[in-house]
């Protein structure tokens, strides 16, 4: 058992599960999506991205790409949240909430790809 692989898998899967946790619920209902969850998703995604640095394989490159996509989506979601609450002070309307959650949904898709790739790699390893 390679502890590096454990940590790696842990963070990739955790990124997906947390992302899912934030995503579920009514799309435009602010009560169903907590800001702490979004924070956790972003932090775990950041960690997962950095863990993918410096992998020379083709698989590593694609994994890094999916993580970067997820991060971009999540940053966009956080930015929308900040703009809505602090800059325009319009508050969390159903419209903004819907766009935040759908952005995180996109990030979740990227995380799903990450996990699928991870599974494929593990299956192909056959050891």
């Amino acid at each position, binding site marked *: 058992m390679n502890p590096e692989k454990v940590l790696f898998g842990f963070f990739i899967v955790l990124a997906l599960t947390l992302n899912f946790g934030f995503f579920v619920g009514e799309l435009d209902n602010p009560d169903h999506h907590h800001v702490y969850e979004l*924070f956790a998703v972003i932090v775990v995604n*950041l*960690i997962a991205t*950095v*863990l993918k*640095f410096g992998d020379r394989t083709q698989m590593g490159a694609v994994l890094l790409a999916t993580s970067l996509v997820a991060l971009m989506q999540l940053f966009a979601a956080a930015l929308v949240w900040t703009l809505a609450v602090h800059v325009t002070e319009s508050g969390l309307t159903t419209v903004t909430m819907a766009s935040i959650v759908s952005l995180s949904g996109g990030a979740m898709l990227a995380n799903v790809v990450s996990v699928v790739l991870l599974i494929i790699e593990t299956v192909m390893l056959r050891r």
Partner: protein
Amino acid sequence: MNNIFFLIFRRMRAPLLTLILTYSIAMLGLVLIPGKDADGNVWHMDFFHAFYFVSFMSSTIGFGEIPYTFTAGQRLWVSFSIFFTVVVWLYSIGTVLALLKDETFQNALTERRFAKQINRLRESFYLVCGYGQTGEALVKALTDRNQHAVVIDILQDRVNQLKLENLREYVPGLCGDARLPAHLLEAGLEHPLCEGVVALTNSNEVNLKIAITSKLLHPDIEVICRADSHDIEKNMASFGTDYIIDPFDAFALHLATAIQAPCLSLLQDWLSLGRRDMLNEPVYPPRKGLWVVCGYGRFGKAVYDKLVQEGLEVVVVEADPDLTGKPKSPLVEGRGTEAETLLEADIERAAGLVAGTDNDANNLSIIMTARELNSDLFVIIRQNRKYNDPVIHAVGADMVMLPSEIIANRIRVLLGAPLQHQFVTLVTHQEDGWACELISRISALVTRHAPEVWEVAFSEYDSHAVCAYVQRGKPLTLGELMTDPRDRACKLPCIPLMLLRRNDYFLLPEQDLKVQKDDRFLFCGSVYAKNRMEWTLQNENALSYILTGEARPEGWIWRRLRKREVT
């Protein structure tokens, strides 16, 4: 991509992870700990403000407490976080910056930039390995003729020197070990426009390695090597190195030619001079009498062998004969810088002296001492360092042998003017009288400067007008081509030296020779003649003026009008 990039990214993992973790812990703490707003209500900091606060706290400290004054709980947390975030911030950013400044990383970046430059080259170039005295002279000579070069040298100083040099063409330079195939490949060894590799480093082994790498990886290109050991030369020749240049042998051969046939050697000299060089006077090394050779190293041996072949009497002066080996002729032990040794070598009745040690100061001293004992000596000096030019010039030796210049000149002719190289090789089989006559013809054409030597190829691209004319089946003689297109009564000041027609070489072709398509001529003469002749070759109107004496109508309308007149 290079390994080093992955390595750098991998090493960035730890500092970046620490940074992310500490930031998120500090932010989470700030969000969780309750504060009070201006009215005393319980208030929780949001993630946006927490991120903002932590960002400036860790890097600067001292923007104050925002948006409301902190409670004691918040202050407790902040006072902890200040220490760990600052430490982590310094560590992470410091490490990342250090990684970016890492020498291997920077070298990898420079190499990549260099490889990109090479890939972008759109004109044929030569790869010059070693930018010492020879490399410098060669690159200068090549760029003066608008040819391109790429340089590799193992010392950064020399590559910097290249950047400071005021060359006519841009010459990319790489600091790297030319023994490594990777560096040669980066410098464009497999580039389709790479015409040749020139190995000029001062180590025979390195040159050998470069030659074998080039021949294996790009078999079609020319490989030219410098070598000064006969073993290595044989080795290089065994796998097909195109040209191997031994400066000592080359000079010894030159000396032998000068002894046998002064005109021939002068002719070869003149033709290989650079564009703005002054013409030199012929030298007449004594054909009989005693020669004293000081220094029996590589140079001494080469000269000694030639002198003995010429049947001359030779005395060798060598300080360390056990190291260099002993010649068959009489040997005097000593450096030759003292009068005693030279007297022992019979300098008083000698006709020639060769100061051939590998130390310029000693060589100069040998000549000064010897001249005091015998003022009529013919003196040959070996110059080891280019920067000693002024003193070597001042001592006024009859012949100066500077290895780097000999090699650079040879290679320049080889690369820049293959026909000229062929000509110089062919004339060695000619009589001295033949060469004397040619010399006097050339000196009538030029003033004090070296004659221009150029090639003319009758191809569609290089001489459009001539090709079109000859292909119509009309006869055209060489003499007609040498007419001045400004005034057809005058001849251009030039001499056709050689003709190459279907792999046969003809020396000094006659003026009434009919030219054919794909002929290649070698001319020598003044720059004026070269420029005028290019006009005739390319411009149909100039050609028709030369042949008929009439200026043809050039425009479409005038051609129409003229046609009507004729009919």
